[in-house]
């Protein structure tokens, strides 16, 4: 289990992290969400000791993370990079050895991962000779070669085509199914909803929502009110409601969580003929937008 608690980091005037805490559990996948500049990368780098935190703790299985623990971690940095002139297979194997694998284990695992990621036959190519998509795959192989217990992926889906997205999702799910702890950052909320069990939403260095997707949706301060009128021109102004969509008579509002659905239904029926009505927890994307206030 990975526990980040009370992380704080300033860069001069810029506050990158302001007390953020995140928990990730074995066999589960955490989606780490937040707008640009929210502090995701800084938090993920702190797991590898790549930032000097002003405050906060990073613990793995209840103990402060140290160099030995990190050998069992895999990392895909936001800024991708491999040695451009080194051969793919040699490079992945070398990174495996750097994390404590024997030469033969590293070679065997490299071969297996390159094959699994569709890079078999490219092992002797220089990294710079690979296409962009294949470089991304090589990068993933580099973070996975030692079958890490914790996988930290910073924006793993950025720049991938749909096939790449599918392959990446499959690998992430596969590692979690094998018992690894996985955390990845993303803007692509649909993907997160598909892949993750847990989410943590960060904004301006603070966690604004965290838990299982259902929890986060359920405990959100708003509810989603959906009303369909047969006549799109009906005039209805429900109290305490913010209209977020209006199309062909289907209107979607965000209303307070403790509002009374019956009162809205009564009001709507008084305004016009209602053909559909729903009062439910907001979607993840709506929770996200509400949480980050934009």
């Amino acid at each position, binding site marked *: 289990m990975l526990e980040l608690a009370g992380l704080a980091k300033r860069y001069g005037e810029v506050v990158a992290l302001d007390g953020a805490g995140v928990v990730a559990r074995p066999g589960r996948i955490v989606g780490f969400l937040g707008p640009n500049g929210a502090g995701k990368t800084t938090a993920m780098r702190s797991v590898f000791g790549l930032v*000097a935190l002003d405050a906060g703790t990073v613990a793995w299985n209840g103990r402060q993370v140290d*160099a030995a623990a990190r050998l069992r971690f895999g990392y895909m940095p936001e800024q991708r990079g*491999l040695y451009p002139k080194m051969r793919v297979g040699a490079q992945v194997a070398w990174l495996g050895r*750097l994390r404590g694998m024997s030469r033969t284990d590293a070679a065997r695992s490299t071969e297996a991962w390159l094959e699994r990621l569709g890079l078999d036959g490219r092992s002797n190519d220089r990294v710079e000779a690979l296409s962009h998509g294949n470089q991304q795959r090589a990068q993933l192989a580099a973070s996975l070669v030692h079958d890490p217990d914790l996988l930290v992926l910073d924006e793993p889906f950025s720049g991938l085509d749909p096939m790449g997205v599918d392959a990446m999702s499959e690998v992430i799910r596969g590692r979690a199914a094998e018992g690894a702890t996985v955390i990845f950052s993303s803007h692509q909320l649909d993907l997160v909803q598909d892949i993750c069990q847990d989410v943590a939403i960060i904004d301006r260095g603070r966690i604004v929502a965290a838990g299982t997707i259902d929890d986060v949706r359920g405990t959100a301060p708003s509810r989603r009110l959906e009303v369909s009128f047969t006549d799109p021109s009906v005039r209805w102004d429900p109290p305490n409601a913010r209209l977020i969509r209006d199309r062909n008579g289907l209107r979607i509002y965000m209303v307070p969580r403790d509002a009374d659905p019956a009162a809205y239904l009564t009001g709507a029926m008084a305004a016009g003929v209602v053909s559909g009505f729903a009062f439910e927890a907001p979607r993840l994307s709506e929770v996200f937008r509400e949480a980050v206030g934009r």
Partner: protein
Amino acid sequence: MNFLRSTYLVAWREATERARSRAYVVSTIFTVVLVGGLIAVVALTDTGGPKSYTVGRAGVAPPALATSIAMVATASDVLVSQTEYSDAAAARQAVADGDIDAAIVAGDTIVVKHADGSTIEAILATALGQARLVQQLDALGVDPATLTDAGAISVVATEPPKSDTGEGIAVTTVVLLFLVITTYGQWVLMGVVEEKSTHVVEQVVSSTSVRSLLAGKVIGIAALGLGQLVLLVVLVIGAGSVFDLFTLPSATVPTALWSIVWFLLGFAFYAVAYAAAASLVSRSEDAQAGAMPVALFGVASYLVALTFVVPDPESTVSRVISLLPPVAPIAYPARIAFGDAPVWEILAGVALTIVAIVAVVRLAARIYAGAILSAGGRMKPRQAWRASRELAGR
């Protein structure tokens, strides 16, 4: 994973990846050609060895002639072998045929092929004069030994004797060491910048320490430089002694061996400084500008070694300058080439350089640790120093 293992792995990667590169192969060939050329020049000009002549004698001659020729030849640093001929005609014929270089016949004639005032002509004329003098003194009843008794004349030296070794070896060594240290220092520079500009450093450092990465890189590249130097030393000494292609000054072997020691010391000093300079920049275009201070130190040391130390290796200025750590690795081998540097001074130079290396490594490693992970443009050393205070333990 401990520090040693990861340092070894980093060094291994550096050495094996670069040994295969075209740059290494080209630079090895270039250095071999360069040094081969320099050594050839040294061998041809500086240390051709004493000239040798064969001389014939025929007919009546002053009794002391043979001894006299030998003495004058030795004094002129020339080897002369002598042959007796039965008559003057045979001796003349031998000169004409080129069997011998010159002959003295009848005690008053010197026979040469071309009378052009050559060394052997002068030697024979002097020797003949002396032999006649001895003969006449003898006739007067004076014992020539009392005149030529060396014990009666004392030689007083103002300076200790100079050894035979040439400036050639010293210059070669200075040029070579400067070249090798600078070339491989630049490799460290470009390697560090490459890691930073391609962002691979983040992946590597996520699973090893910054210090392993620095140490491994310097050691790996040093191994390549060392390989090249050893190859050169073996080639030069091998060609000189085994195949007898040319005569090397007697200090060549110790100079060559010491050069290896000084390469390692000098490289440690400069490479670590290059790495620190490189870690402060983020783009390869900025690398040379960032490394300017280090490169200047190198060039200055090189020039100082050539202008002060090589012409007068044992002057006070040379002795003091060559102790200074940035100059020492380049200057000391030159002094050693002259064969006159006292052992205690060499050891003092080594010790001082090691102290300087320790200081530079601590300073540079800290700047490197603080800067290597920073994003954005150029960083100032002071910022990096502070940043690494925070990154303690990485």
